[in-house]
């Protein structure tokens, strides 16, 4: 796992104690796209399932995640796809 992915994983674990978390570097799927860099770690997908998201709407859930990863989004991360769930959701 790259440095950026490791950093994001640590922040998300600390903030949400997720029961499921996957930080997936999809940079290779965006070869040559805007923001893409040879070094990788520009395009990510994050799947996260945590109790903190229960009862929250879609927009609020994503804002909660964006807030924790604000520095990454302002820095090296160009694109971030999110799948945010509460435990028990399909």
């Amino acid at each position, binding site marked *: 796992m790259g440095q950026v992915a490791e950093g994001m994983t640590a922040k998300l674990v600390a903030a949400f104690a997720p029961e499921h978390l996957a930080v997936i570097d999809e940079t290779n799927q*965006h070869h040559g*796209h*805007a923001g893409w860099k040879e070094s990788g770690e520009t395009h990510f997908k994050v799947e996260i399932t945590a109790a903190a998201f229960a009862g929250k709407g*879609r*927009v609020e859930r*994503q*804002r909660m995640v*964006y807030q924790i990863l*604000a520095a990454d*989004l*302002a820095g090296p991360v160009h*694109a*971030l*796809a*999110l*799948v945010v769930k509460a435990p028990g959701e399909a």
Partner: protein
Amino acid sequence: MSDNAVFDRIRDEIGNTDVVLFMKGTPVFPQCGFSAAVVQVLSHLGVKFKGVDVLQDPSLRQGIKEFASWPTIPQLYVKGEFVGGCDIVREMYQSGELQQLLADKGVAGNQAA
């Protein structure tokens, strides 16, 4: 340069048009896969929308993120309300919630598409 000028412009855009998509590129030539995906959903639903290309204006590109407290683009607005970005639009489309939202807001589309 003040935030207010950019915010005023954004309020104008979303106040004057039912469905507005702040995106990278144009609906005909999207410059980003995530923007393209939302264009595709709206087009599939036959929804008339206005695409605003944030790449044409750095202050808008930054301002729209602050306006919505949402750090990414695209951003979809229906009747002045922020709906979400690419993930949310796709999820809502797949579950039928987007079609319901548009119908509830009285936005005409081609639901049979």
